[in-house]
Protein backbone atom coordinates (compact mmCIF):
# COMPACT_ATOMS: atom_id res chain seq x y z
CA UNK A 1 0.00 0.00 0.00
CA UNK A 2 1.08 3.49 -0.77
CA UNK A 3 0.03 6.68 0.96
CA UNK A 4 -0.21 10.09 -0.65
CA UNK A 5 -0.87 13.64 0.46
CA UNK A 6 -4.40 14.64 1.32
CA UNK A 7 -6.61 14.85 -1.78
CA UNK A 8 -10.31 15.46 -2.27
CA UNK A 9 -12.30 12.46 -3.46
CA UNK A 10 -14.05 14.34 -6.28
CA UNK A 11 -10.74 15.50 -7.78
CA UNK A 12 -9.36 11.94 -7.64
CA UNK A 13 -12.43 10.52 -9.36
CA UNK A 14 -12.31 13.16 -12.06
CA UNK A 15 -8.73 12.29 -12.95
CA UNK A 16 -9.45 8.55 -13.00
CA UNK A 17 -6.88 8.25 -10.28
CA UNK A 18 -6.38 4.71 -8.97
CA UNK A 19 -7.07 3.93 -5.33
CA UNK A 20 -9.55 4.63 -2.59
CA UNK A 21 -10.02 7.98 -0.89
CA UNK A 22 -10.61 7.86 2.85
CA UNK A 23 -12.35 11.03 3.94
CA UNK A 24 -10.97 12.69 7.06
CA UNK A 25 -11.78 16.06 8.56
CA UNK A 26 -9.94 18.68 6.51
CA UNK A 27 -9.44 16.50 3.38
CA UNK A 28 -9.02 12.87 2.38
CA UNK A 29 -6.22 10.32 2.27
CA UNK A 30 -5.85 8.19 -0.82
CA UNK A 31 -4.61 4.63 -0.58
CA UNK A 32 -3.30 3.02 -3.70
CA UNK A 33 -0.85 0.44 -5.01
CA UNK A 34 2.46 1.62 -6.46
CA UNK A 35 1.96 -0.59 -9.53
CA UNK A 36 -1.43 1.02 -10.15
CA UNK A 37 0.09 4.47 -9.88
CA UNK A 38 2.87 3.60 -12.33
CA UNK A 39 0.41 2.13 -14.83
CA UNK A 40 -1.84 5.17 -14.47
CA UNK A 41 1.12 7.45 -15.18
CA UNK A 42 2.31 5.36 -18.10
CA UNK A 43 -1.09 5.11 -19.73
CA UNK A 44 -1.57 8.88 -19.63
CA UNK A 45 1.76 9.74 -21.18
CA UNK A 46 2.19 7.58 -24.27
CA UNK A 47 4.32 9.27 -26.86
CA UNK A 48 3.99 7.79 -30.33
CA UNK A 49 6.85 7.31 -32.76
CA UNK A 50 6.67 9.32 -35.99
CA UNK A 51 6.29 6.31 -38.22
CA UNK A 52 3.94 5.96 -41.18
CA UNK A 53 4.42 3.99 -44.38
CA UNK A 54 1.33 4.88 -46.43
CA UNK A 55 -2.17 6.39 -46.49
CA UNK A 56 -3.03 5.47 -42.87
CA UNK A 57 -0.26 7.90 -41.94
CA UNK A 58 -2.41 10.75 -43.29
CA UNK A 59 -5.25 9.71 -40.97
CA UNK A 60 -2.76 9.45 -38.10
CA UNK A 61 -1.63 13.02 -38.83
CA UNK A 62 -5.29 14.10 -38.81
CA UNK A 63 -5.69 12.55 -35.35
CA UNK A 64 -2.64 14.50 -34.19
CA UNK A 65 -4.02 17.75 -35.55
CA UNK A 66 -6.37 20.19 -33.82
CA UNK A 67 -9.71 18.67 -34.87
CA UNK A 68 -9.18 15.24 -33.22
CA UNK A 69 -6.09 16.01 -31.15
CA UNK A 70 -4.80 12.87 -29.43
CA UNK A 71 -2.83 15.12 -27.04
CA UNK A 72 -6.10 15.31 -25.07
CA UNK A 73 -5.58 11.68 -24.04
CA UNK A 74 -1.87 11.93 -23.27
CA UNK A 75 -0.45 11.01 -26.67
CA UNK A 76 1.04 14.45 -26.52
CA UNK A 77 3.79 14.71 -29.14
CA UNK A 78 5.03 12.36 -31.84
CA UNK A 79 8.73 11.69 -31.31
CA UNK A 80 11.12 11.38 -34.21
CA UNK A 81 13.43 9.11 -32.20
CA UNK A 82 12.47 5.59 -31.08
CA UNK A 83 14.50 6.20 -27.89
CA UNK A 84 11.90 8.73 -26.75
CA UNK A 85 8.79 6.90 -27.94
CA UNK A 86 6.49 4.62 -25.96
CA UNK A 87 4.11 3.43 -28.67
CA UNK A 88 4.58 2.70 -32.35
CA UNK A 89 1.50 3.08 -34.55
CA UNK A 90 2.08 0.95 -37.63
CA UNK A 91 0.19 3.16 -40.07
CA UNK A 92 0.50 1.54 -43.46
CA UNK A 93 1.81 -1.31 -45.57
CA UNK A 94 4.94 -3.11 -44.42
CA UNK A 95 6.95 -4.49 -47.32
CA UNK A 96 9.82 -6.96 -47.21
CA UNK A 97 12.38 -4.17 -47.45
CA UNK A 98 10.74 -2.17 -44.63
CA UNK A 99 10.37 -5.14 -42.25
CA UNK A 100 13.96 -5.14 -40.91
CA UNK A 101 13.74 -1.36 -40.39
CA UNK A 102 10.50 -1.71 -38.41
CA UNK A 103 12.09 -4.46 -36.31
CA UNK A 104 15.11 -2.29 -35.58
CA UNK A 105 12.95 0.70 -34.60
CA UNK A 106 10.97 -1.52 -32.25
CA UNK A 107 14.16 -2.94 -30.73
CA UNK A 108 15.52 0.58 -30.20
CA UNK A 109 12.44 1.70 -28.23
CA UNK A 110 12.83 1.69 -24.46
CA UNK A 111 10.62 -0.60 -22.35
CA UNK A 112 7.72 -0.46 -21.69
CA UNK A 113 6.75 -0.27 -25.36
CA UNK A 114 3.45 -0.82 -27.11
CA UNK A 115 2.37 -1.46 -30.70
CA UNK A 116 -0.84 -0.51 -32.50
CA UNK A 117 -1.53 -2.05 -35.92
CA UNK A 118 -3.57 0.56 -37.77
CA UNK A 119 -5.58 -0.49 -40.81
CA UNK A 120 -5.93 -3.51 -43.06
CA UNK A 121 -2.33 -3.50 -44.34
CA UNK A 122 -0.81 -3.59 -40.88
CA UNK A 123 -3.25 -6.31 -39.77
CA UNK A 124 -3.02 -8.72 -42.69
CA UNK A 125 -1.52 -7.09 -45.76
CA UNK A 126 -5.03 -5.87 -46.62
CA UNK A 127 -5.57 -5.20 -50.33
CA UNK A 128 -2.07 -6.59 -50.97
CA UNK A 129 -2.80 -9.98 -49.42
CA UNK A 130 -3.05 -11.82 -52.76
CA UNK A 131 -0.67 -12.01 -55.70
CA UNK A 132 2.08 -9.81 -54.36
CA UNK A 133 5.75 -10.58 -53.98
CA UNK A 134 6.69 -7.72 -51.68
CA UNK A 135 4.16 -7.17 -48.88
CA UNK A 136 4.32 -8.65 -45.35
CA UNK A 137 0.94 -10.26 -44.58
CA UNK A 138 0.49 -8.58 -41.22
CA UNK A 139 2.94 -6.56 -39.15
CA UNK A 140 2.58 -9.11 -36.31
CA UNK A 141 4.87 -11.37 -38.32
CA UNK A 142 7.61 -8.89 -37.40
CA UNK A 143 6.78 -7.44 -33.97
CA UNK A 144 4.09 -8.23 -31.35
CA UNK A 145 0.94 -6.09 -31.63
CA UNK A 146 -1.19 -4.90 -28.69
CA UNK A 147 -4.18 -3.32 -30.42
CA UNK A 148 -5.54 -3.86 -33.95
CA UNK A 149 -7.80 -1.33 -35.73
CA UNK A 150 -9.77 -2.44 -38.78
CA UNK A 151 -10.36 -0.05 -41.67
CA UNK A 152 -8.80 1.05 -44.92
CA UNK A 153 -7.90 3.53 -43.63
CA UNK A 154 -9.66 3.65 -40.22
CA UNK A 155 -11.56 6.80 -39.28
CA UNK A 156 -9.72 9.14 -36.91
CA UNK A 157 -12.29 8.22 -34.25
CA UNK A 158 -11.28 4.58 -34.66
CA UNK A 159 -7.65 5.43 -33.99
CA UNK A 160 -8.69 7.42 -30.90
CA UNK A 161 -10.70 4.39 -29.78
CA UNK A 162 -7.66 2.17 -30.26
CA UNK A 163 -5.45 4.57 -28.32
CA UNK A 164 -7.94 4.62 -25.43
CA UNK A 165 -8.21 0.81 -25.62
CA UNK A 166 -4.43 0.65 -25.23
CA UNK A 167 -4.69 2.90 -22.17
CA UNK A 168 -7.32 0.59 -20.68
CA UNK A 169 -5.03 -2.39 -21.28
CA UNK A 170 -2.15 -0.66 -19.54
CA UNK A 171 -4.36 0.39 -16.61
CA UNK A 172 -5.42 -3.25 -16.13
CA UNK A 173 -1.84 -3.68 -15.06
CA UNK A 174 -0.28 -6.59 -16.90
CA UNK A 175 2.56 -6.15 -19.34
CA UNK A 176 2.64 -8.41 -22.38
CA UNK A 177 5.53 -10.31 -20.78
CA UNK A 178 3.51 -10.87 -17.61
CA UNK A 179 0.54 -12.13 -19.62
CA UNK A 180 2.80 -14.51 -21.53
CA UNK A 181 4.43 -15.80 -18.34
CA UNK A 182 1.02 -16.32 -16.75
CA UNK A 183 -0.22 -18.42 -19.66
CA UNK A 184 2.95 -20.54 -19.72
CA UNK A 185 3.00 -21.47 -16.03
Amino acid at each position, binding site marked *: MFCLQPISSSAAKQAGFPGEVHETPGGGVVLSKLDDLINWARSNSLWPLTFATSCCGIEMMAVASAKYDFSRFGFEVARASPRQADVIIIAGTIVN*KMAPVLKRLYDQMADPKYVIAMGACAISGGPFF*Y*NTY*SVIKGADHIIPVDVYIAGCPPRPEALLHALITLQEKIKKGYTREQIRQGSNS
Partner: protein
Amino acid sequence: MNNEALHAYLTEQVPDATFDTSGEWLNVQVSVAAFRPLTEKLKKELQFNFLFCLTCVDWKTHLTMVYHLRSTQEGHHLVVKVNLDTQQPQIHTVCDLWRTAEFHEREVYELFGVDFLHHPDLRLLILPDGWEGKNPLRKDFDDPVNMIKL
Protein backbone atom coordinates in the same frame (compact mmCIF):
# COMPACT_ATOMS: atom_id res chain seq x y z
CA MET B 1 0.81 21.56 -82.63
CA ASN B 2 -2.55 19.78 -82.44
CA ASN B 3 -3.20 16.04 -82.71
CA GLU B 4 -4.02 16.22 -86.46
CA ALA B 5 -0.72 17.92 -87.26
CA LEU B 6 1.15 15.38 -85.11
CA HIS B 7 -0.70 12.58 -86.89
CA ALA B 8 0.34 13.93 -90.30
CA TYR B 9 3.95 14.41 -89.21
CA LEU B 10 4.24 10.88 -87.80
CA THR B 11 2.64 9.27 -90.87
CA GLU B 12 5.27 11.01 -92.96
CA GLN B 13 8.15 9.91 -90.70
CA VAL B 14 7.00 6.34 -89.99
CA PRO B 15 4.69 5.14 -92.80
CA ASP B 16 3.81 1.81 -91.11
CA ALA B 17 2.88 3.38 -87.74
CA THR B 18 -0.58 2.68 -86.34
CA PHE B 19 -2.60 5.25 -84.41
CA ASP B 20 -5.22 5.42 -81.71
CA THR B 21 -7.01 8.77 -81.74
CA SER B 22 -9.79 7.88 -79.27
CA GLY B 23 -8.17 9.54 -76.25
CA GLU B 24 -7.20 13.08 -75.35
CA TRP B 25 -3.65 12.39 -76.48
CA LEU B 26 -2.55 10.87 -79.77
CA ASN B 27 -1.28 7.29 -79.41
CA VAL B 28 1.21 6.02 -81.94
CA GLN B 29 2.51 2.47 -82.19
CA VAL B 30 5.81 1.90 -83.96
CA SER B 31 8.21 -0.99 -84.51
CA VAL B 32 11.37 -1.46 -82.46
CA ALA B 33 13.51 -0.55 -85.48
CA ALA B 34 11.65 2.71 -86.14
CA PHE B 35 11.51 3.72 -82.48
CA ARG B 36 14.98 5.14 -81.88
CA PRO B 37 15.23 7.38 -85.00
CA LEU B 38 11.70 8.62 -84.27
CA THR B 39 12.48 9.63 -80.67
CA GLU B 40 15.48 11.66 -81.80
CA LYS B 41 13.27 13.54 -84.28
CA LEU B 42 10.56 14.09 -81.68
CA LYS B 43 13.10 15.61 -79.32
CA LYS B 44 14.86 17.84 -81.87
CA GLU B 45 12.15 18.77 -84.37
CA LEU B 46 8.95 18.75 -82.29
CA GLN B 47 10.48 20.03 -79.01
CA PHE B 48 9.26 17.08 -76.94
CA ASN B 49 11.54 18.01 -74.05
CA PHE B 50 9.73 16.23 -71.23
CA LEU B 51 9.32 12.47 -70.83
CA PHE B 52 6.77 12.40 -68.03
CA CYS B 53 5.97 8.72 -67.94
CA LEU B 54 7.83 5.61 -68.98
CA THR B 55 6.31 2.23 -68.26
CA CYS B 56 5.73 -1.27 -69.55
CA VAL B 57 2.66 -3.52 -69.87
CA ASP B 58 2.67 -7.31 -69.87
CA TRP B 59 -0.04 -8.61 -72.24
CA LYS B 60 1.11 -12.25 -71.77
CA THR B 61 1.55 -12.59 -75.58
CA HIS B 62 3.92 -9.61 -75.75
CA LEU B 63 5.24 -6.65 -73.77
CA THR B 64 4.40 -3.03 -74.63
CA MET B 65 6.71 -0.16 -73.76
CA VAL B 66 4.77 3.09 -73.22
CA TYR B 67 6.38 6.54 -73.39
CA HIS B 68 4.37 9.67 -72.51
CA LEU B 69 5.91 12.78 -73.99
CA ARG B 70 5.14 16.45 -73.52
CA SER B 71 6.54 19.62 -74.93
CA THR B 72 6.68 22.32 -72.28
CA GLN B 73 7.32 24.89 -75.01
CA GLU B 74 4.59 23.92 -77.47
CA GLY B 75 2.18 22.32 -75.00
CA HIS B 76 1.50 19.21 -77.06
CA HIS B 77 1.46 15.60 -75.90
CA LEU B 78 2.19 12.25 -77.51
CA VAL B 79 2.06 8.62 -76.38
CA VAL B 80 4.53 6.31 -78.11
CA LYS B 81 4.05 2.55 -77.81
CA VAL B 82 6.38 -0.22 -78.90
CA ASN B 83 5.60 -3.94 -78.80
CA LEU B 84 8.39 -6.19 -77.59
CA ASP B 85 8.95 -9.92 -77.67
CA THR B 86 8.28 -11.66 -74.32
CA GLN B 87 11.25 -14.02 -74.55
CA GLN B 88 13.92 -11.49 -75.56
CA PRO B 89 12.64 -7.96 -74.97
CA GLN B 90 15.22 -5.50 -76.28
CA ILE B 91 14.89 -1.80 -77.07
CA HIS B 92 17.28 1.12 -77.47
CA THR B 93 17.55 3.37 -74.43
CA VAL B 94 16.20 6.95 -74.49
CA CYS B 95 18.10 8.14 -71.42
CA ASP B 96 20.58 10.11 -73.55
CA LEU B 97 17.61 12.17 -74.85
CA TRP B 98 15.62 12.39 -71.62
CA ARG B 99 17.82 11.92 -68.56
CA THR B 100 14.86 10.87 -66.38
CA ALA B 101 14.64 7.65 -68.37
CA GLU B 102 17.80 6.38 -66.73
CA PHE B 103 15.99 5.48 -63.49
CA HIS B 104 12.69 4.56 -65.16
CA GLU B 105 14.40 2.15 -67.51
CA ARG B 106 16.20 0.55 -64.59
CA GLU B 107 12.81 0.09 -62.92
CA VAL B 108 11.30 -1.50 -66.04
CA TYR B 109 14.43 -3.65 -66.31
CA GLU B 110 14.06 -5.05 -62.79
CA LEU B 111 10.29 -5.52 -62.90
CA PHE B 112 9.81 -6.72 -66.50
CA GLY B 113 13.29 -7.79 -67.63
CA VAL B 114 13.41 -5.46 -70.61
CA ASP B 115 16.98 -5.08 -71.90
CA PHE B 116 17.70 -1.43 -72.73
CA LEU B 117 20.53 -1.33 -75.25
CA HIS B 118 23.29 1.27 -74.66
CA HIS B 119 21.94 2.13 -71.20
CA PRO B 120 24.95 3.39 -69.19
CA ASP B 121 24.10 1.68 -65.89
CA LEU B 122 21.49 -1.05 -66.26
CA ARG B 123 21.12 -2.70 -62.85
CA LEU B 124 18.42 -3.18 -60.20
CA LEU B 125 16.88 0.08 -58.94
CA ILE B 126 14.77 -0.78 -55.88
CA LEU B 127 14.74 -4.56 -55.55
CA PRO B 128 17.45 -5.96 -53.28
CA ASP B 129 20.37 -8.04 -54.51
CA GLY B 130 19.47 -11.49 -55.73
CA TRP B 131 16.44 -10.40 -57.77
CA GLU B 132 18.27 -10.26 -61.07
CA GLY B 133 16.26 -12.03 -63.76
CA LYS B 134 13.18 -12.63 -61.58
CA ASN B 135 10.95 -9.82 -62.97
CA PRO B 136 8.12 -9.79 -60.38
CA LEU B 137 5.67 -7.69 -62.43
CA ARG B 138 5.51 -10.25 -65.23
CA LYS B 139 2.13 -12.02 -65.29
CA ASP B 140 3.80 -15.44 -65.19
CA PHE B 141 5.96 -14.54 -62.16
CA ASP B 142 5.49 -17.01 -59.34
CA ASP B 143 6.87 -17.03 -55.79
CA PRO B 144 5.47 -20.02 -53.89
CA VAL B 145 6.97 -18.86 -50.56
CA ASN B 146 5.77 -15.25 -50.31
CA MET B 147 2.85 -15.13 -52.71
CA ILE B 148 -0.71 -16.17 -51.90
CA LYS B 149 -2.63 -16.94 -55.10
CA LEU B 150 -6.24 -15.79 -55.41
